[in-house]
């Protein structure tokens, strides 16, 4: 019963509904929560794609850490609900632009991928188990791995410095 197609449909539905609500909700907290929903939906999708580790990490990092950060900020600043801006021309134009982007990305990709799907995979079947991922991560992508770690360090320092409450003697 719980075959892959139904799982896919279920999770993508969650993700899409979550995404739509993130964009449309006026209250940032609701938006944040819907985003958590979307993340969980996407995590589910990862599972259907066989990337278990990614699913867990997605939940842990995105839903667990990033969204909590968002909630912290929203709650600390106790933002009130922003009045929903009317659909000004700019808004209309931007929506139009997004529709165009969506069409452009989806259409060719779908076609192109199908054509190449038949192509023989160039590398031996490497199931997305933690071991394989780890080996790729530390062999082929060693440099990016180090760079990302550096990036995270910089982000931490940056975030602390930016958000630090200025001490009394410092100018705000």
């Amino acid at each position, binding site marked *: 019963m719980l075959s892959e197609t139904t799982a896919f449909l279920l999770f993508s539905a969650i993700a899409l509904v979550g995404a739509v609500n993130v964009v449309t909700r006026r209250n940032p907290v609701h938006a944040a929560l819907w985003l958590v929903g979307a993340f969980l939906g996407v995590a589910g999708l990862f599972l259907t794609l066989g990337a278990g580790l990614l699913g867990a990490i997605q939940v842990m990092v995105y839903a667990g850490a990033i969204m909590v950060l968002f909630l912290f900020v929203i709650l600390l600043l106790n933002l009130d609900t922003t009045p929903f801006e009317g659909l000004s021309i700019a808004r209309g134009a931007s929506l139009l*632009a997004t529709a165009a*982007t969506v069409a452009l990305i989806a259409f060719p990709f779908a076609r192109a991928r199908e054509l190449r799907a038949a192509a023989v995979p160039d590398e031996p079947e490497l199931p997305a188990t933690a071991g394989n991922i780890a080996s790729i991560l530390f062999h082929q992508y060693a440099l990016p791995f180090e760079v990302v770690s550096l990036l995270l360090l910089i982000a931490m320092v940056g975030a602390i410095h930016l958000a630090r409450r200025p001490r009394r003697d410092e100018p705000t």
Partner: protein
Amino acid sequence: MNLVAGLLLILPLAMAALLGLFGKRLHGKTPGLLAFGMAATCFGLAVAAFLHLRGLPEEARFVEASFWRWLDLGSGDQRLALDVGVWLDPLSVTWALFVTGVGSLIFLYSISYMEHEEGAWRYFSYLCLFLFSMLILVLGENLVLTFLGWEGVGLCSYLLIGFDYGKEVAARAGRKAFVVNRIGDVGFLIGMFWTWKLYGTLGHGEMKPIMAAVTAVPPLLALGYFVGACGKSAQLPLFVWLPDAMAGPTPVSALIHAATMVTAGIYLVLRLSPLFVAAEWALDVVAWTGAATALFAGLIALRQRDIKRVLAYSTVSQLGYMFLACGLGAFGAAAFHVITHAFFKALLFLGAGAVIHALHGEQDLWKMGGLKHHLPKTARAMTAGAFALAGIFPFAGFFSKDEILGVAFAQGYAGDPSRYVLWGMGVLTAALTAFYTARMMTLCFGGTSRVDPHLHPHEAPAPMAIALQVLMVASIVGGAALGFEALHWMPLHHWIDPVLAAPPHPTHLPPALNWGLMALAMMIAVLAWRIGAKWYGGDFAPARQAELTAPRFAKLLQGRFFVDELYALLIVRPLRFVAELCLEFDRRVVDGLFRGAGSFSALLSTTVRLAQNGVVHAYAFWMVVGAVLLLTLALA
């Protein structure tokens, strides 16, 4: 012989440099004496050269000496090899002779004339430089050296006219002289280039055989040289600078603007006579210009108040005669007239100088009169010169002028009616010359004295007197000595004609007609002289009477045909207007164009700046649009 030639050139240059650098320390007469000494030695050298050349057989009668190679470029037919050297031949020696001869007399005259001037050393240094330039012009081995002399004399005349710094008039006249000469020089230059292109050489020696052999020469080439000659010898279009050049000291006028420099034009035409002959209608142009200038200048001279201006216009008129002679092909006659003219015109100028010296700078004829009692010797000398100028029998002028008229009449007689017109113009000018000379003499020396009372004129000091006397003798004897055509006594022609081109269509007058013409010319001169003397002798009644009959013509003459104003109107002012126009165009358009480029980029930057309006959404939106475009591009 090379030494003689070399010295002839080095001496004046050395003296000019000597006086130029150390002149300040020499006081009083020493600079003058030094200069005169140098001039005299040069005259001696010239005579030595003359004698040497007489010794040589006729066809080998030339000496070529080159000192150092000035320029040597190119190869084969495009070779341009010019040396600094000397080319002595009868023509150049003749010129050297009368240049140094008259020159040394004028140097002598200047000693006393410039005695009280404080810049005398500078004056004499310029005079020596002038003598050097004139000599190198005449003796130069190739046309470039002639051109060197040509511009050199132009420069010296500029310096000498503007000798008296203070006077604005002198400065402007100097500049005018140089500029007008320069116009002529352009013609000379173009002539030279063309000659080099056609014949590949500029050296007189090398050109002689070529010119002899050449048959058809592009007329414009010859006319190029003629324009140069007009510029230097003040012919019709370019004569305006000579009358103004009178602003310089009188000996300068005598030396440069009567005897030597102005004859350079004739020398050039004579030197290149074969070219002129070969250039079909070039000679006719020369003839007609000469005749027209003679007549034109003669008319203007009629009503000039300033004694030196009268002489200046008479010089222009006489030069016209010379060019008329060249135009007719009688190159020998032209040379003859040049020499005689040098004598009596120098005499007249020096005489006028003595008069002015006596009257402490007064030059206006209406402020003179009755001077023959105070300056008897000067009066006598000037009368001789005047008679020579007017062309009265025994005096020099008569022979040379008559010869020219004779040739004109002969060619007319030989079947070319236009020559008769030329002869007619010549005779009319002769009459006018006699008239204004008489007018000048009577106004100056005869009649009642209109001199400023507290001026008491005294006779010219010794050096001036000597110079006057020598020139008087030359004016009297010179003509007959050099050539009495009717009596076939023509030593000058025998001496100079072989070097010049043979006249294109030689003519011969029956002796009776010849003598008749001479008598006619004599009669006209005497008659015109008497009328002139009578008109201006007494109370000027007849003169005033003539004025009333043709008032406008009189004023026209008085205003010198307004030639200066005409030139200013037609050339100088438009040229200056074009210059102003160019300046404005340059600043506004060309510069504006580049400045515009600058402001355009500023404009561009302001428009682009508007895109940065600080709204995050705008940036986001444009990012998306950009992405979309890229995608369509990638996928299309």
